[in-house]
């Protein structure tokens, strides 16, 4: 059994790294990314016009970066062993494979091959303090379990829109946790760890958060872009 139910629509809350996510940051602005010298050489010659000319528009929409794109995220079950994540920004689809899944042969892809497992968590703690200003709601989802997704076989792309690269040697591990906030909002917290021996000096760790929607409001599939 899935310990938490991720299905439905989620929207990005963009109050961190705003200038790296909502707009394209300046060329050469690498704040926070533990890049290698080789990565810097690659990023320093980033030219969006070249990506545009070559038709390579989706390099910032690969699995290691897609959750940082401001957008709407739709989780469904494709079948009993496959969770599907559709993203409207860039119109991307990720598939999370459970069980004894074998990746097909072929070239690396933008969203890579993702293997998923549930990490089941423990029981319930004591009741909350009745004098606290916000009572925990009944049956909060936090702490019941985590979806862990490991992604490899990635086509090279950008960690950020301004050409900060990851290579085909990159790996991505993500932890999906759900939280019920005081006002009843369901939040999804995703901790993403990108390792890349070629372009990163240490694992690149970012945590993104999303709010659950009751409908597909705002769902607006759009094409990949390089200058916006």
């Amino acid at each position: 059994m899935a310990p938490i139910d991720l299905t439905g629509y989620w929207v990005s809350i963009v109050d961190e790294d705003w200038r790296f996510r909502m707009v394209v940051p300046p060329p050469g602005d690498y704040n926070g990314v533990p890049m290698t010298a080789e990565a810097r050489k690659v990023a320093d010659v980033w030219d969006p016009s070249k990506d545009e000319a070559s038709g390579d528009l989706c390099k910032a929409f690969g699995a290691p970066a897609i959750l940082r794109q401001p957008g709407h995220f739709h989780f469904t079950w494709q079948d009993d062993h496959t969770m599907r994540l559709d993203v409207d920004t860039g119109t991307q689809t990720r598939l999370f494979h459970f069980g004894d899944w074998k990746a097909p042969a072929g070239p690396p892809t933008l969203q890579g091959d993702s293997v998923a497992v549930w990490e089941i968590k423990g029981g319930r703690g004591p009741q909350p303090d009745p004098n606290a200003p916000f009572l925990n709601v009944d049956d909060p989802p936090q702490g019941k379990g985590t979806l862990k997704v490991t992604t490899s076989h990635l086509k090279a792309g950008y960690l950020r829109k301004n050409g900060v690269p990851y290579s085909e040697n990159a790996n991505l591990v993500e932890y999906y946790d759900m939280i019920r906030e005081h006002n009843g909002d369901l939040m999804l917290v995703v901790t993403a760890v990108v390792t890349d021996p070629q372009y990163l000096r240490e694992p690149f760790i970012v945590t993104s958060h999303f709010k659950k929607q009751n409908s597909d409001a705002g769902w607006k599939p759009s094409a990949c872009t390089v200058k916006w």
Partner: protein
Amino acid sequence: MMTRNPIGLLAVILLGLSVPAVAQIDLSGSWQSKNHEDALERGAGPNPDDFTGIPFNESGRAKALSYSQSQISMPERICAFYSQWHMMVGTFGDKIWNETDPVTGKTVAWVVGAWEDRAKMTIWMDGRPHPSKNAPHSQEGFTTGVWDGDVLTATTTHMLSGYLRRNGAMTSDQATMITHFIRHGDILTLAAEIVDPVYLTEPYYITRSLVLTPNLMNAGGPPCIIGDEGVPSGSVPHYLPGKNPFLDEITKLYHIPTEAALGGVETMYPAYRDKIKDKFTIPPKCSKNCGLPPGL
């Protein structure tokens, strides 16, 4: 919900049988901050006019725009900005340990050690109530915690006014902070919201991750030490309405339109991009605070 495979189901059943009624995990250790997100804000400090993504109300925005960084040179205000929210948006890691009852050995509190400018956070786990709403507030505030499975949820009240972002965006002393501590092996994810009826229209969320390190991280002593930088008493550095000289800084540096820089709940959501799309062009090459250490 759907059954995915029988082995997984068996594991769930077995785990369910073996889990104690009150599940807790060990949060103790030295947790290093990586600052891979919001690096400028956590390090050198945010641009003075960068209020993007903050769900300000008009009071919050007006308060922020009146702020002069020179205020922290005033002895009266030098320590006035660092509430427990600094744990979420500051630069340092966290030293965490548990305090136990000497007789029963049970955990009475989890403690997130202080830094040089943030008071320690003592998360009481023994069921004691929050103080009366009329009780005095402090830089430390008052925090209680509960376990939801393996997630520790802490609620902090009774803080003094502090900063929301280190450029004058403030929280009031009516703010409540709720922090979830989520451990994944050697990674500790903190997911926090701050609710402030005085300056915000919606909760403001920050998530960040820390990494367990074998290097001992000592907790700090008293939070902030008041110093005298020679600022004469009798005036509070500030900007009158419409007179903040930094209002176009991120517009010049990053081509972010001024209306986005001023924040507001709309700026938290993806749809806001549609409003500024036609006003944006890629800015010129980064020339300062570009983020890489010397030699790279």
